[in-house]
């Protein structure tokens, strides 16, 4: 990486190998995880992995400073496209997933013409309107979208059977690993994009769009690029969802679901790559372990709403800011002027 701004803090050789070691441990833990869970918890783990991709792709869009309310609908475009391709045209499933992602990206490319004439509130509401239109089209046109009931019996991933090795993707464990591979690869790409020149430009557009324009950055094109890339991965997440659950309907991609994505991203914090992932994991665990355990299922929206409000009021930088804050607090308690100066950020 020639870019000094990106490489500066984290890239000592020691730090880097430490980071790699952490990654190895993380993957080892993720590989063991499903065997420690019950069947229904395995199913939740699959959805969690898919949601990680959804919220991470959403973060790429927020890098340019725009908050969309249509991201879940874009995910739905991928889901519907992949499902219809497999069901109606007999396209093999892994391929249909990829085409679904491309359809979601294409939809975003078309939508960017009206939407990126707006900023801020206007973009938020515009993306909401565009998403609702797409959703109403699914609802209204029974052929081919299946109307309010949506599509059912969507083809699953084909089994792999090579004599000595056979994998049945109806099993949540197997689908978990499949999703894990796809999502990890996608996250890697998203991470590289953010650390590339393009990603830096996204940041520049967020904080200083006039300045970026004045040095020759075409902000419209870069905003569109962020939107298209984010939508592609949202579409992939949608396809993964459709072929796992086997059914999609317009309600599944309604604005209520979008609220959950917002909550994950905001509670986790969008300043770093891992923030939204942290948000979705922590909230899903709270939701499944605590709320379901206590039988508080009906109260779920209330608790999510309260968490959202509290984090906007008291933790505006998200859960990710807890670590550094805690460290700073500990150092302050230990005193010592050198320590206090060390981790100011």
């Amino acid at each position, binding site marked *: 990486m020639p870019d000094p701004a990106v490489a500066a803090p984290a890239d000592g050789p020691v730090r880097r190998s430490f980071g790699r070691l952490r990654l190895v441990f993380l993957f080892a833990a993720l590989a063991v995880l499903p065997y420690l869970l019950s069947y229904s918890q395995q199913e939740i783990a699959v959805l969690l992995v898919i949601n990680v991709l959804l919220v991470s792709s959403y973060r790429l869009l927020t890098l340019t400073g725009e*908050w969309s309310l249509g991201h879940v609908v874009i995910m739905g475009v991928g889901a519907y496209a992949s499902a219809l391709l497999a069901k109606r045209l007999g396209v093999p499933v892994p391929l249909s997933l990829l085409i679904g992602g491309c359809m979601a990206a294409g939809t975003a490319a078309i939508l960017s013409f*009206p939407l990126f*004439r*707006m900023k*801020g*509130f*206007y973009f*938020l*509401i*515009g993306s*909401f*309107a*565009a998403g*609702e*239109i797409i959703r*109403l*089209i699914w*609802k*209204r046109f029974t052929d081919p979208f299946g109307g309010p009931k949506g599509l059912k019996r969507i083809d699953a991933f084909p089994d792999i059977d090579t004599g000595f090795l056979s994998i049945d993707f109806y099993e949540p464990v197997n689908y978990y690993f499949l999703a894990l591979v796809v999502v990890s690869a996608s996250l890697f790409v998203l991470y590289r994009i953010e650390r590339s020149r393009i990603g830096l430009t996204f940041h520049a557009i967020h904080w200083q769009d006039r300045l970026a324009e004045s040095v020759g950055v075409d902000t419209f094109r870069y905003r569109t690029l962020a939107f298209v890339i984010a939508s592609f991965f949202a579409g992939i997440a949608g396809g993964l969802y459709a072929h796992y659950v086997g059914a999609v309907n317009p309600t599944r991609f*309604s*604005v209520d679901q979008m*609220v959950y994505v*917002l*909550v994950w991203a*905001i509670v986790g914090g969008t300043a770093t790559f891992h923030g939204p992932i942290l948000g979705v994991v922590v909230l899903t665990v709270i939701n499944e372990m605590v709320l379901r355990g206590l039988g508080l299922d*009906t*109260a*779920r*929206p*209330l608790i*999510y*709403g*309260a*968490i*959202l*409000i509290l984090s*906007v*009021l008291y933790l*505006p930088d998200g859960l990710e800011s807890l670590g550094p804050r805690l460290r700073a607090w500990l150092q302050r308690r230990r005193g010592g002027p050198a320590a206090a100066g060390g981790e100011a950020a």
Partner: protein
Amino acid sequence: MDLLWQTAINAMYAASYMALIAVGLVMIFGVMGVINFAHGELYMAGAYCVVFLYAQEKFPFLLSVAGGLIFVGIVGLLMERALFRPLRKNPLGGLIASIGFLLILQTLAVFGFGRRMGHVPPSTHGKIEIFGAILTYQRLFVIVVAILLLAALWTFLKRSKFGWALRACAQDAEAASLQGISMNQTARIAMFIGAALAGVAGALTAPLVSPTPYIGHSIIVTAFIIIIVGGIGSLEGAVIAAVLYAFVHTFVTTFFDGVIANIVGLALMLAVLVVRPTGLFGAKERA
């Protein structure tokens, strides 16, 4: 011809309650700079006040509507104090906090009244005929009250000292506070009125719509369309756009179907956003 005239009468009814909702939303935005996403749920809260006071506890209808107005106004004050005041520097944060509040109100309604439609018996059964078109008293009542309330609001805003302060804050909050206008006091009044208007719209229409805890969704979509088409900071624009949208929506619903009408409304809003983001009646500098 009869159908056209009847549809126009229906559209007038729709326009009257939509105008109440949209004007409330614009008032909140004007003074606080926050889009209140929970506005649809304030409407829902007003409707459930009537479900509770009128349908369950058998209070008179008018009293129940007044109860809804005051209750939802107080909910508005609560929102101002708990959410929008601490987040005044952060309008996007205010919007997101209002989404959180929306979820809370929805869940409370589910706890209190269940998920199913609340049934409210009509308060009168009478109807009048206007050149062959039928207008029930229930709907006429909504139209009359909406016009009275909006007229009262207009006089209040143009004549009273509070009204001047309110408009001053909407134009330039800093300059207004330099003139000795209390920002907090003004925000409270605006929030009370804005929320109460949504609440009274819900209360008035409760016998006509069968409220559910999730009714706020379609209301907020409608309100967004109206305030965008009318220009996001303009009260007059909101009223005119409410009439315009009500006519378009009612006619398309009658001659095609409801889903198509929603698509047309949203497409109208997108078109306005693209061509003229300040809305048809908005001030230029709000771009």
